[in-house]
C-alpha cells in the first residue's frame, strides 16, 4: 500500500468519526469539535489528492494545498463564532431563565 492510500483511508476514517460525533455529540461544543474533526478529515483527503498530483517539480499539487489553507482559516472562523454563541447562551442561562435584561423585550 502506498503512503497516499494509507493517508486517504485514514482521512476516510476521520470523516466517519467526525460524522458520528456530529450526530451524537452532547451539546454544541461537542458538535463544534466534531465539526473540526470532520473538517480535518476532509482537508487531509484534499492533501492526499494534492500529493497524488505531485509533478512539475512540486511535492504536491499546489492548488489543493492552497485551498486547504483557506479552508482551515474558514473552519477556525466558524469555531470562533460557535464558541461565542455557546458562551453567550451559558451566560444568559446562568441569569436564571429570566428574559434578558434588555428593556426592549416586547413579547
Amino acid at each position, binding site marked *: *500500500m502506498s503512503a497516499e492510500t494509507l493517508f486517504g483511508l485514514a482521512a476516510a476514517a476521520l470523516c*466517519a*468519526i467526525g460524522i458520528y*460525533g456530529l450526530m451524537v455529540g452532547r451539546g454544541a461544543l461537542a458538535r463544534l469539535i466534531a465539526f473540526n474533526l470532520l473538517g480535518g478529515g476532509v482537508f487531509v*483527503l484534499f492533501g492526499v489528492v494534492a500529493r497524488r498530483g505531485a509533478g512539475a517539480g512540486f511535492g504536491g499539487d499546489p492548488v489543493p494545498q492552497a485551498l486547504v489553507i*483557506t479552508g482551515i*482559516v474558514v473552519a477556525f472562523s466558524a469555531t470562533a463564532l460557535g464558541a461565542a*454563541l455557546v458562551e453567550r447562551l451559558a451566560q444568559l442561562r446562568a441569569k436564571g431563565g429570566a428574559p434578558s*435584561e434588555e428593556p426592549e423585550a416586547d413579547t
Partner: protein
Amino acid sequence: MSLAFDALLCLLALLAALRAVAAGEGFSRVAAFMAYGLILGLVWVRLAAVDVALTEVAVGSGVTGLVLLRAVARDDAPAPLAAGLAYRLLAGVVALLVFAGLAAVVLLLPEPAPSLAPEVARHLPATDLGNPITAVLIVFRALDTLLETVVLLLALIGVWALSPDRTWAGRPAVLLPAPWSGALEFLARLVVPVGVLVGLYMFWAGADVPGGAFQGGAVLAAMALMAIAAGLLPRPVLARRRLRALLLAGPFGFLLVGVLGWVFADAFLAYPPGVEKAVIILVEAAITLSIAVTLALLVLGPPVAEETE
C-alpha cells in the same frame, strides 16, 4: 520503514479523534482535539505540504484550541443527556457507510491523478514568486483569499454582535486570571520579541518558501495574546477607530488593489505588469496585519461590561 511511521501517525490521529469524540469532559475533548491538530501537522509534512502544516498547527490546532478552551471554561451548563442507544447505533451505521463510501473512492481514484501542478509551474514565472502556494492564494485564486479575509472579519462582527447593547464598544473579558508570580511576564518579555520576529519572517519569506500571511499572522496574534495575558499590553477597546482600521486594512487594501487592476492591468485583481511582486508583498503585509489583529480579537471574544471582573 517510512510507511510504518506513516501508519503510526494515522493511528495516533485516529486515537486522538476518537478521544475528542468520546471523552466525557469538555476539557479532555479539547485537549484531545489539540493533540489531533498537532498530529495532523505531521501528516501534512508527510504529504509534502509544509505551508499547510504550519497553518494547521498555528490556526487549526493552536488558535482554534484556544477558542474552544475559552468556551469550555465559560460554558458551565451540565452536558445534555447522551443520545439513546438506537440513535447511536444509527449514527454508527451512518459513519460506517461514510467510511465505506470514501474508502472505496480513495481506492478507485483515477490513475494518473489529474493535477494542476504543471499549469501552476507554467505560469509561476509570470508572478515573480517562488512559493507556488502563495502564487495560488494571492494571484491565481486571489478572489478566494480576498473573501476569506472578509469571512474572518465577518466572524468577528458576529462575535461582537453577541454582546449586550451597552457593552458593544467595551473591552473583551480577561482570558486568564492574573498569575501570582512574574513567570508569565518574564516569559512574555523574552518570547514576544522573538515571536514577532518569527511572525514577520514567516510573512516575508512566504513569497518564496513555505510561510505566508496566514501563518505569520497567526504567530503575531499569539504574541499579542501573550503580551495581553501577561499584562504588558492593555486589553483593546473595540470601538477604537485605529483598531478597526487595522482590521479593515487587509480586506480593503486587497479590494483596492483589485479595483486598481481594472486601471493598471486589464482585469479585477490583476497585478500591474512590472511591479507585481512589490504590490503582492504590500497586499500580503496588509493581510498579515489584519489577520493578526482579527485572530487575536476572535480569541479574546465579545466585549463585556467592565464591572463584571
